[in-house]
């Protein structure tokens, strides 16, 4: 994909050079420009490709590094050979049984959170309108907290989280009414988040000390001790939902940002698109919460960083996903190795990094009048 971007750049510069030498080639230049506008309408932009591929490569590098570090150090080269199935048995056990599930969960959860954040921000037309601000994540965590306090198993917890997230989305959608303006959806979502936070606070006071520690750890978002049981469902949901989002919703969402009226005039089935995108995003974020807890801020920040880097309009789904995976893997690596003697829950790292980014975002975006 990088090569296609580079080669296009080459043709453009080539055309420019020809333009200076002969007047006849002017026609050719206009055709190249026309070709470029058509192409960009389809949604492939060189910057987006570079950002997506760059983030993916960075994720891979961190992955290799992160698989190699821990109580038992493994050299990067050995990590790679082990991953291709040619390492020694000890390495293979440590990597595929202990470290890989956690890493894969981090990548998948980061991707899911970022995708749903991009969709939500695009739907409500506000750069702060991510599912963790609008009560969807709170729905998942309140339901999961109920299970923790009742002493349920971790499978029950995951199921409750998924159902809770979906129920909260449905409720917000119902209360906000059919005329789903970004504005009202946001306010209803914030109200819902406040109610659910109140209920969570109550649930926390009901638990005994042991359960509270577990509940609080879960509420912060942690990847400790994740095995294939968490990674596989997340992967299945991503495989099912992402193609729908990318192929069916992506182009439509970009047109939808111009306003409902313009979009329906351009032939976009607005209600269908909106509900479909909302449901897919809610599914992604609920499953993400079920696998890793309500990790803060990844859904908020990843689409922003992606947009800032690609400078493209629309939800920027693919670059967002890549950046989200990178963010969560990086945050988890930091969480494991920042302190010498203990590992932090990943939610702490994303919370602190996210908070700093947020303050910066609020001041700059406010100055630009975009929030």
């Amino acid at each position, binding site marked *: 994909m990088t090569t296609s971007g580079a080669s296009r750049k080459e043709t453009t510069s080539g055309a420019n050079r020809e333009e200076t030498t002969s007047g006849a080639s002017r026609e050719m230049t206009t055709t190249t420009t026309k070709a470029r506008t058509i192409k960009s309408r389809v949604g492939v932009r060189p910057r987006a490709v570079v950002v997506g591929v760059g983030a993916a490569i960075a994720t891979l590098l961190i992955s290799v590094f992160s698989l190699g570090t821990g109580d038992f150090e493994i050299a990067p080269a050995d990590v790679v050979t082990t991953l291709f199935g040619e390492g020694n048995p000890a390495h293979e056990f440590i990597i595929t049984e202990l470290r890989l599930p956690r890493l894969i969960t981090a990548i998948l959860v980061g991707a899911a959170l970022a995708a749903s954040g991009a969709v939500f921000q695009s739907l409500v037309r506000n750069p702060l309108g991510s599912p963790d601000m609008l009560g969807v994540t709170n729905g998942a965590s309140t339901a999961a907290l109920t299970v923790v306090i009742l002493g349920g198993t971790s499978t029950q917890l995951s199921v409750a989280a998924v159902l809770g997230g979906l129920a909260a989305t449905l409720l917000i959608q119902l209360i906000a009414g059919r005329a789903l303006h970004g504005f009202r959806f*946001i306010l209803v979502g914030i*109200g819902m988040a406040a*109610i659910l936070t109140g209920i969570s606070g109550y649930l926390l006071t009901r638990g005994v000390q042991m359960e509270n520690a577990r509940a609080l750890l879960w509420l912060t978002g942690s990847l400790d001790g994740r095995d294939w049981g968490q990674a596989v469902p997340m992967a299945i949901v991503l495989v099912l939902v992402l193609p729908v989002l990318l192929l069916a919703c992506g182009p439509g969402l970009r047109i939808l940002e111009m306003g409902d009226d313009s979009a329906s005039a351009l032939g976009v089935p607005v209600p269908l698109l909106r509900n479909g995108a909302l449901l897919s995003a809610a599914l992604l974020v609920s499953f993400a919460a079920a696998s890793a807890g309500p990790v803060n*801020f990844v859904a908020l920040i990843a689409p922003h960083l992606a947009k800032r880097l690609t400078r493209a309009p629309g939800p920027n789904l693919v670059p967002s996903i890549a950046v989200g995976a990178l963010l969560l893997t990086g945050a988890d690596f930091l969480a494991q190795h920042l302190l010498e003697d203990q590992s932090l829950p990943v939610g702490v790292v994303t919370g602190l990094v996210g*908070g700093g980014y*947020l303050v910066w975002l609020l001041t700059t975006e*406010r100055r630009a009048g975009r*929030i």
Partner: protein
Amino acid sequence: MALAALAAVAVLSIGFGARFLSPAEVWSGLWDPTAQSYRIVHEMRLPRTLLGLMVGMALGLAGAIMQALTRNPLADPGLLGINAGAAAGVASAAVFFGVGTFYGYVWFALGGAAAVTALVYAVGGGRSATPARLALAGAALNATLYSYVSAILLSDSQAIEKVKFWTAGSLASADFATVQRLLPFFAGGLLAGLLVARPLNALSLGDDAARALGARPSVIRGAVIVAVTLLCGGATAACGPIVFIGLLIPHMVRPFTGPDLRWLLPYTAILAPVLLLGADVLGRVLGSPGELQVGTVTAVLGGPLFLYLVRAAK
């Protein structure tokens, strides 16, 4: 009417509990040292009721003047993260500095509240801020601060137990000492809040008109921020973050008084404690033999009202 409602709720708040006291018993318990109910009223119920009164007034007033200052109907100290800022201050005090007394952490609470008030105002207080913009900025700050609070609580399981009631918002730990210590902060905030009513009225016409009327916008804004900080910081230090009180009461009062703050603020100050004490009584009744935290009750009661307001405002 409003005063009567307040008196009724106060009597109920004193009356309800592990042992129910009739209004007559409450009356004799208040004034007659020989009555059987004297000790119950004075040692347990009265401080709690007084604390509820003060905190309710503080939050209601803070909400009303924030709404006037930001010219934004959705400004609420809870939703805007000011209470969460105070909570973050208290949690840091409890975990990092081992502070456990009200006097110790009220300063941290005030600091946190002041920082967030200034930040939210800087972010969303400009003339161009829409309600949704301000509310989102507040929600985002809330999320940051709560993730910070839970992060530092996670590092210390003793602190979880110490602070867990506090983070849900509760009047249960009330005693006379807390009431006395809150009093100076509360009185200062109340005074400042009521004093800015007139100049804030002028400010609602816009900065230029206000200046023409002899008001000084920057001084007024400063005074409002000080008042909000004192009210919210003190209230939060005493009983934890409580949402929605500051949002709902001004909205319920406004149809009767109109937008004039000289009427709006006193009525808000009287009716807000009615809601808070009512929620507290309800929490004690519903949760018996234990109790529901008042913060939970106000969130669960106030939330739907908030959603209704959003729906009603086309």
